[in-house]
């Protein structure tokens, strides 16, 4: 028992030291598709603001919105769609759109099924994987199907865009619809086919600071970085469009 108490005391002491090292912590909740760009922006923010540590929690926007709804202590929330930002509307200051994303067709390397464009995805016998209509990438898929007058019968409706990418990357699907940023992050592991109808289903990404943000000053500064020239350049490199 005494040993246990010693260990607990030591752990507390260590935790204390940790918070002395970084004077302030900015907590950012960001959609999973922002992983690459926001990791880079968080590093830039830490370099510009000595003694500040940026902790970014990347997950599906709906999971993040739910955690905020349950009272997670967060300074900034960046969502992959306006619906999930709307779920926490009473807890955030007015949101602004900082980036846009759109869909592309991805195929396994070499495009074995010779998919040429969106219309091909309706072909018989082609194994196409989409996001489920209930998630943002899936509702975007429905919108491009409607815009193009194409009716795709997928073999599977996945929970998120990364799951679609995985099935295509493994060659278990002939084609899938994913965000251009996810396709770009996958590099050579997938083939990418752009199609004009994707302009009809552009996904806006809103960002907002929380009303009761623990670090309101830092949160406002981080928002300025994301919407400013540096942030926009970083997001552009990841494939995002400008609002």
């Amino acid at each position, binding site marked *: 028992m005494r040993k246990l108490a010693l260990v607990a005391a030591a752990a507390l002491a260590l935790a204390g030291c940790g918070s002395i090292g970084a004077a302030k912590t900015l907590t950012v909740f960001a959609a999973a598709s922002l992983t690459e760009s926001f990791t880079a922006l968080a590093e830039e923010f830490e370099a510009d603001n000595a003694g500040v540590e940026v902790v970014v929690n990347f997950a*599906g926007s709906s999971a993040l919105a739910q955690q905020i709804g349950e009272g997670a202590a967060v300074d900034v929330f960046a969502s992959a769609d306006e619906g999930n930002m709307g779920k926490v509307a009473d807890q955030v200051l007015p949101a602004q759109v900082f980036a846009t994303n759109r869909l592309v067709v991805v195929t396994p390397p070499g495009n074995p099924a010779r998919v040429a464009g969106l219309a091909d995805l309706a072909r018989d016998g082609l194994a196409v994987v989409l996001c489920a209509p*209930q998630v943002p990438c899936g509702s975007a898929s429905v919108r491009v199907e409607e815009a193009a007058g194409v009716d795709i019968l997928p073999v*599977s*409706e*996945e*929970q998120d865009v990364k799951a679609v990418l995985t099935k295509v990357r493994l060659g*278990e699907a002939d084609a899938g619809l994913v965000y251009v940023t996810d396709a770009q992050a996958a590099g050579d592991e997938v083939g990418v086919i752009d199609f004009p109808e994707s302009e009809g289903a552009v996904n806006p990404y809103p960002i907002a600071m929380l009303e009761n943000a623990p670090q309101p000053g830092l949160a406002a500064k981080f928002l300025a970085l994301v919407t400013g020239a540096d942030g926009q350049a970083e997001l552009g490199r990841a494939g995002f469009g400008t609002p």
Partner: protein
Amino acid sequence: MTRPVRTGLPVLLWVPAVAALALVVLPVVGLLGRADLAALPGKVAGPGALAALRLSVETAAVSTALCLVLGGPLAVVLARSRVRGVRLLRAVVLLPLVLPPVVGGLALLYLLGRNGLLGSQLPGVRIPYTTAAVIIAQTFVAMPFLVVGLEGALRTAGERYEAVAATLGARPWTVFRRVTVPLVLPAVGSGLVLSFARALGEFGATITFAGSLEGVTRTLPLQVYLLAETDVDGAVALSLLLVVLAVLVIAVARPRAVEGLR
């Protein structure tokens, strides 16, 4: 007739026992607390929900049967065979319990997928995205529950009765049928219930290997996960349905299988 003497229960055991029960029950109470009970029937009767419920019950039933047909004999071999390497096999059988289900699903894809070890040898046959894939995934994760329980029971029962039957002239198949099987029937029953419950709740391997499509591969747990994106109340309602289903199966089947034979 003497009445059996009951040894008292050490009071000390009650404290952790109650804590254990609380750990299992309280989260479900939390689920109930969040549920909008008036809207429950409507949510549960939604179109996607009924299709998912039906698919879940059917696939879990087939998977449980497969667990028995394949896993039962495996348990007997593991418990009775004197072949070298059986101890290693015993550890291998536990793998699906240790592997994160998503990894299990990936492993199944690497084996049976279009580019998989076996899958690539079967042109024209597609296993992923089919109901068969759901059943394979469920059987993969559920089978160890039956095998481990049954093997333990076989070892506990020992081989004395089987040896006696053999010395009386019974052939191996007769010994198996008339002696071994009746001895371990309670363990088979509880193994089946556990396997069914595990198959019913299977999620990670299914979504990775079989995908998610209404009526084909989207079982109740997958429907709950998807619903949680847009309609948390609906997800809670369906979770409760899953809980009720599991409790029913365990309450009805387990006492009969395990205790009814005394």
